[in-house]
């Protein structure tokens, strides 16, 4: 029994961290976040493929690494630390659906190589609550409208959820970009009337939904780790009243509360990831809890980070706002907090 990463997992963490530090620091990626229609520079996307991140969970037979949820958490935590732009998690999750469906080896090979981008189109309404329009699969076609399709302008194909089950739909798509408060996102509303193939029943998504929850929680963990480190450092150098602000108990206790949420998120995320890999009885509850908690914790930690930084924390110049905004995006997607709370209840028969 050990909570620490294995030697291989630690190596993966180190190589991911040094790769991202060299290739994807925010000062390099923020231009693409602001301007690139795909949200991520093409060269960086291909390097992510070369590193094996896109095929992380896919079998070696299609060029994947055959790794599990713990490794997914390791990579996404590091991606969160640099606030990596682009649809890394979206593509990993869509590939997991296709892999679970079986029979899509050529497409999976392209995904792993970075040649095709597939993401999941899930939302049937722009606002929480009533479904705006149900996307239907019938007669070999998918018809309807999907909202908040992540990085849709760069997607070659979509995994579209329908009441019949997830369907694979190939582009091109008629789409309307829907910018949000997080300028790094490339969400769009996609209107579908396309030939499609049914990938399986709705339950086919169970595993990939959990992987999405683990991956998003891990990214939240990375985002809040970095926001916490920035605040911890700032509190020791910024002076007010002739003292470092970190010597004031009110700031110390803020940082202690941030650390509490950060470390508790770490416990929850890696436990959930392990549960997925071990097919543990607690998997459903552990994944739902990790995502719901990480969403709240991320908002809290990044929000307090802005507060500790004061005026500079409210600027576009300081990188903190990218972290703050991304936590908000992650909180609402990959199974929103509200959806995860329902999953937690249903895992216990409520």
């Amino acid at each position, binding site marked *: *029994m*050990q*909570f*620490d*990463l*294995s030697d291989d*997992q630690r190596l993966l963490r180190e190589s991911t961290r040094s790769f991202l530090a060299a290739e994807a620091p925010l000062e390099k990626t923020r231009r693409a976040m602001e301007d690139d229609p795909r949200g991520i520079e093409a060269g960086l996307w291909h390097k992510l493929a070369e590193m094996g991140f896109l095929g992380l969970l896919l079998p070696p037979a299609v060029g994947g690494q055959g790794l599990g949820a*713990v490794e997914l958490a390791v990579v996404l935590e590091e991606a969160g630390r640099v606030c990596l732009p682009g649809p890394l998690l979206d593509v990993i999750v869509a590939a997991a659906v296709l892999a679970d469906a079986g029979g899509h080896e050529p497409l999976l090979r392209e995904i792993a190589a970075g040649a095709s981008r597939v993401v999941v189109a899930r939302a049937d309404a722009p606002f929480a609550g009533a479904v705006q329009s149900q996307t239907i699969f019938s007669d070999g076609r998918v018809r309807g409208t999907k909202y908040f399709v992540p990085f849709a302008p760069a997607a070659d194909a979509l995994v579209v959820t329908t009441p019949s089950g997830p369907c694979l739909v190939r582009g091109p798509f008629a789409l309307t970009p829907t910018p949000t408060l997080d300028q790094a996102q490339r969400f769009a509303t996609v209107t579908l009337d396309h030939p499609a193939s049914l990938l399986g029943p709705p339950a086919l998504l169970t595993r990939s939904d959990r992987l999405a929850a683990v991956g998003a929680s891990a990214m939240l963990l990375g985002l809040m780790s970095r926001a916490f480190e920035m605040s*911890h450092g700032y*509190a*020791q150098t910024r002076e007010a009243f002739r*003292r*470092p602000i*970190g*010597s*004031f*108990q009110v*700031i*110390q*206790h803020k*940082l*202690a*509360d941030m*650390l*509490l949420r950060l*470390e*508790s*998120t*770490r*416990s*929850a995320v*890696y*436990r*959930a*990831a*392990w*549960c997925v890999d*071990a097919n*543990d009885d*607690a998997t459903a*509850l*552990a994944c*739902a*809890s*990790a995502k*719901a*908690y990480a969403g709240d914790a991320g908002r809290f930690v990044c929000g307090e980070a802005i507060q500790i930084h004061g005026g500079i924390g409210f600027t576009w110049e300081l990188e903190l706002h990218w972290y703050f905004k991304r936590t908000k995006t992650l909180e609402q997607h990959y199974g929103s907090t*509200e959806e*995860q*709370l*329902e999953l*937690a*209840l249903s895992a*216990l028969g*409520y």
Partner: protein
Amino acid sequence: MDLHLEPAHLAFREEVRAWLRANLPRPWRECLRDPAATEDSLMALRRRWQRTLYTAGYLGMDWPAAWGGRGATEVEKAILEAELAAADAPPILNLLGISLLGPALIHHATEAQRRRFLPPMLAADEIWCQGFSEPGAGSDLAALKTSAVLDGDHFVVNGQKVWTTFGPWADWIFALVRTDPKDRYGGISFLLIKLDTPGVTVRPLRQITGESEFGEIFFEDARVPRENLVGQIGEGWRIAMTVLMYERGAASLGHAERFGRDILQLAAALRRHGRLAGAAREKVARLLVENEVMRANGLRTLANFAAGKVPGPESSIEKIYWSEFDRRFRETALDLLGPGGQLARTSPGALPDVDWAREFLWARAGTIYAGSSEVQRNIISKRVLGLPQA
């Protein structure tokens, strides 16, 4: 990363479960709501239960066998505690003796002291209370003033201890006393005092719950043999601080079992009352989530123990988490249950499975005892985050 228990630990857990099925007379919550129960009868029950555990070899889990322990590890101890919580076993009576004084004696006492004090502590033949806090020394523990002046082969003790948990039920107190008024930390010593010593007076204090689990203790020229000093004169602070480190264990796992059961009772009661919808439903779900994250914290600590890692000051995070969550949970429960949640356990109509009113009040203690939430945040700031001190 591997959260599977080793086969030997799994076997131990099965053994404990089977033993509890055969030996636990009834769940603690049933003892508490027994109309015939009194504070005395419940303390007597806790003493009997402690003896049952001791006889079966389930006390002093991680203590060497030479002094009555089992010679196992923190892992078995944490597994046992989680199983005791899951089965809703009564708390033992000598809680503070075993969790705090025991480790202090094992690490700092003489062999003669260990042989003298540890076995009767485990057997509940001698009950211990903790004499740290004073009227003028709570979170600022080193401000304590109770003095001990050496006079031949005795210390003469004068002063007062307060919030002394188990004071009214104890035979002995382990006390921090001041042996040098000029040295704030180095002037503190660790002394074992028998409560029937002339000059020692114990008075019960009534708590917020109406119970008198704690009390206050007065010392007026009480003569204590020098051989009851633990460690050297002036080592008391160091011993106390290391002792507080042992208090932790993987406590979150046990709490997650107990709270988890109570949350499900809350959900069931709300469903019966047609109230598990809307805002109430969301609140219950959030409790489940927070409890599950607490369990994850406990599993992490347990796994770290199993890998031979001793928790450092970051265990303050666990203390803040469980004690503040306990408070939020009990407050939420009373909000959702309505006035019925405030019924005393003896009231007609009180919910049978959880004494919600008592739990609500009792939850106020956890964020104060064993280092308040504020002290824990100071510990994190200083020892984990290394922030500059004012």
